[in-house]
């Protein structure tokens, strides 16, 4: 476990050693703020207005954007996590150290999760403070929303890292991970077009059902935690198997 912590520290530092993380954080914060204040969330059967139009003192619009925006930003942040190790050949050295592959996977996952959560907090807290100054914000919904977002980020990050582990090209990794996370996000869009027997399954399989309907509205549900933990676990196991498979190349 201590080796996973060592990997975590290196990966955390590596994220901030290049300008990519800063650029992505800056773009993400600005875009999310613009969407929150001016655009709202116009996608789907129940659009949400921007803060200025709606005048609601909550962060629901921000949280509603997260399943889609994180499906783009997480692949961008994690695309190099494994692909670059493979391209540069550093995975060869690491895989000969007295280290179990799952320790490496766990360290990388935790570092990526922490970076994305930092990004989510950097968006959420300033917006929450702004809203609290304008109206009567229920802070408990903010904290519960962040806990739910932590689950969403964990599931997304574990899956996106698998996309990076599938290739040595960062661009290909980005596309694979975006396709994977985008497909998950699309499940709820398909509900309206699916036969009734399938619609319930699609609804329950979508991340929105386990975040937007519960934690984003201030309600914590154990089933949601299990849902995100299952995706996270599946992603970590898949990632470890992909790493083990490298030895069989």
């Amino acid at each position, binding site marked *: 476990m201590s*080796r996973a912590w060592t990997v975590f520290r290196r990966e955390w530092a590596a994220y901030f050693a290049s300008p990519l993380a800063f650029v992505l954080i800056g773009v993400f914060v600005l875009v999310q703020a613009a969407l929150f204040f001016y655009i709202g969330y116009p996608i789907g059967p129940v659009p949400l207005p921007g803060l200025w139009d709606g005048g609601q003192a909550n962060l629901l619009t921000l949280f509603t954007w997260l399943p889609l925006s994180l499906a783009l930003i997480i692949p961008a942040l994690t695309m190099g996590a494994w692909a670059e190790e493979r391209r540069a050949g550093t995975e060869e050295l690491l895989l000969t150290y007295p280290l179990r592959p799952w320790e490496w996977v766990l360290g990388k996952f935790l570092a990526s999760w922490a970076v994305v959560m930092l990004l989510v907090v950097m968006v959420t807290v300033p917006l929450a403070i702004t809203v609290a100054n304008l109206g009567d914000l229920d802070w408990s919904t903010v904290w519960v929303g962040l806990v739910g977002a932590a689950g969403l980020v964990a599931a997304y990050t574990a899956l996106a890292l698998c996309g990076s582990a599938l290739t040595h090209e960062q661009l290909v990794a980005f596309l694979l991970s975006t396709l994977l996370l985008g497909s998950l996000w699309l499940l709820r869009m398909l509900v309206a077009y699916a036969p009734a027997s399938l619609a319930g399954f699609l609804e329950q399989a979508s991340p929105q059902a386990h975040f937007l309907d519960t934690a984003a509205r201030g309600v914590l549900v154990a089933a949601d935690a299990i849902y995100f933990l299952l995706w996270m676990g599946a992603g970590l196991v898949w990632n470890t198997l992909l790493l083990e498979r490298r030895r069989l190349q």
Partner: protein
Amino acid sequence: MSPHPASPPDSEPMIRAAGLCKHYGDVQAVQDVSFDIHRGEVVGFLGPNGAGKSTTMKMLTGYLVPDGGEVTIGGDPILGDDLAARERIGYLPEHTPLYRGMRVDRYLEFVARMRGKRGAVMRSALERVIDRCDLAGYTQRRIQTLSKGYRQRVGLAQALIADPEVLILDEPTSGLDPAEIVRIRDLVIELSKDKTILLSTHILPEVEEVCRRALILAGGRLVADGDLLDLTGSQAERISLTLVAPPESVASELQLIQGVRTLIGQVQGSAQRVRFQVEVSGRFEVAERIAEQARTRGWRLLELRHESATLEQVFLRHTRGHGLAAKPEVSA
């Protein structure tokens, strides 16, 4: 912190490769390669490009899983559940893959932690490898700003940081300038005092200087394995002699000596001085007979010596027709 694995008994090979096979798609990269390397041996690993050296090294270090065969390090399987075999190995892959964005000291600290070192033990290990690899003054530099020679030193430092019993070095001097080659070579010679080393290189004088034994791989197969003296000595049973004698009779008389197979060359010098190269069976016995013949015939024997093949000749003989068969570098 992981315990340092107990050293195996001296009778146990430090490195055992048994029937290693590996293919990439339709290409059989390594076929049934077996050898033992014992504690304290320094072994040169030779072969043309594409012979399977790097693939074999990757299997020895546990990076690649063989399609067939097994590797043990100090008696423990490299792919076993416990990590004892891996803790015994320091590995420098070809092209020295490093985290180039990191500072040298932070990278080495990262490697030390990954290898289970903490606290004072880690600091002491860092000081030791920085001193040994002559990296003092460069520890604050990012690896990407270092010259190739210094990056190679960092690569060696990471291989040495856990003070492993076994070093596997894949072309450690490739692409370095002559001064840096000598520095790395001297370091390997120093390390050979207390470590078991497998060293792959195309620079044959390096093998002759550093190693006592060589493995030659060609076409994925092990085609030669032996002490350098045996390898070079067994290739040509050839004697060179210079004497002062009547040139017209000496050649025919030499050919009558038991054990002489062919007279290869005859160079007539001044004042009846003649020089021959003689292919023989049993070089010591034939040399004695030639000396006796010279004494009885009154020839003046100026030179009589056994001609060893060079390692380059041995290499070319074993690898001819295999793979890309790059001509080895014969000077550093």
